[in-house]
């Protein structure tokens, strides 16, 4: 028996098959398999993520972890305090407080301006919002309200 005989014998193996019925629904089975894999993935990834996180946490020294937690707490508290609006209530309520002490005409104009700004979120200017709530002295002469019409705000300019 030589190598050619071996090769010829091996070629016979190409004729071995599980039968046509095996492949009849192969595509449907494959799609089912893919869907199952996709559904399995998110929870696996999340689980793997938490495992890795806890693993890392257990390797951190206790003192370092405590310091880190303290710093993080102060940072979060600071962010909350800074981002708190002065006084309570919504931006509209803030606007109402600002309008106290103005003449009715100016009251009308500023009210229209505030409504215009908050009607479209893209027109809100955080700097302006903060500055609106300062002392009455600064707000006594609003520079951008001309008569009955509302002048468009420019981001570079503030009260």
């Amino acid at each position, binding site marked *: *028996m030589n190598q050619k005989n*071996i090769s010829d014998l*091996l070629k016979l193996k190409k004729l*071995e*098959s599980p039968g046509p019925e095996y492949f009849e629904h192969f*595509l449907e089975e*494959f799609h089912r398999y893919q869907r199952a894999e996709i559904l399995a993935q998110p929870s696996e990834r999340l689980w793997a993520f938490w495992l890795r996180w806890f693993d890392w946490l257990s390797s951190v020294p206790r003192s370092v972890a405590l310091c880190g937690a303290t710093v993080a707490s102060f940072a979060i508290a600071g962010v909350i305090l800074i981002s708190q609006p002065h006084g309570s209530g919504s931006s509209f309520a803030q606007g109402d407080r600002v309008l106290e002490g103005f003449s009715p005409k100016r009251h009308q104009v500023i009210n229209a301006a505030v409504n215009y700004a908050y009607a479209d979120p893209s027109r809100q200017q955080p700097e302006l919002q903060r500055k609106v709530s300062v002392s009455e002295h600064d707000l006594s002469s609003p520079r951008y309200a001309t008569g009955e019409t509302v002048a468009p705000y420019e981001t570079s300019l503030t009260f």
Partner: protein
Amino acid sequence: MKSAETCSDEELMASVLAGDIAAFDHLVLRYKERLYGVIYNMTSNHEDTNDLLMESFDKAFRSLPSFKGQASFYTWIYRIAMNRALNLLQKRKKNKNDFSLNDIQLEDAIQKEFLDASSLVDPERQTELKELQIKLNESLQKLSDEHRAVVILYDIEGLSHGDIGRIMNCSEGTVRSRLHYAHKQLQKGLASYLK
């Protein structure tokens, strides 16, 4: 407009990457039988073959965006399938207690068309063929995984030495030497049976 059956593998891959996910189904239909043969001849187990076949196609689908086109689609997918099969065989060796040699199937149905065409329809000749089949599979199983892989890809699948080298990530010289050694071993294993 070209039908999917006449599109080349590269055209179908481009369609998939362009968002036509259904084009991948045509690649699956095109290669399912060939990949089945490769994996089955490596593992000699239908259940494992079924699982690995699904895994291989799924892996190919997920990896399509990173396919750089340096190799043809069929060498690429053969490589995926072969790597999966080799990994499974490695695991089997490590977990010998979980896998029994009885799980190896040495005999599979031979296509009826072949039996009819070769006039091997009489029972005695069919029995001889079955025995030869079993003996050949036994001899193949005795080869190492790498030697069996090159024999399957060259003698059964008909791939070139170059393609086998790309699939197995080795040189053509290594492919030839493994093939030569594997054939010698198979000759020894079958010689006593064929005397």
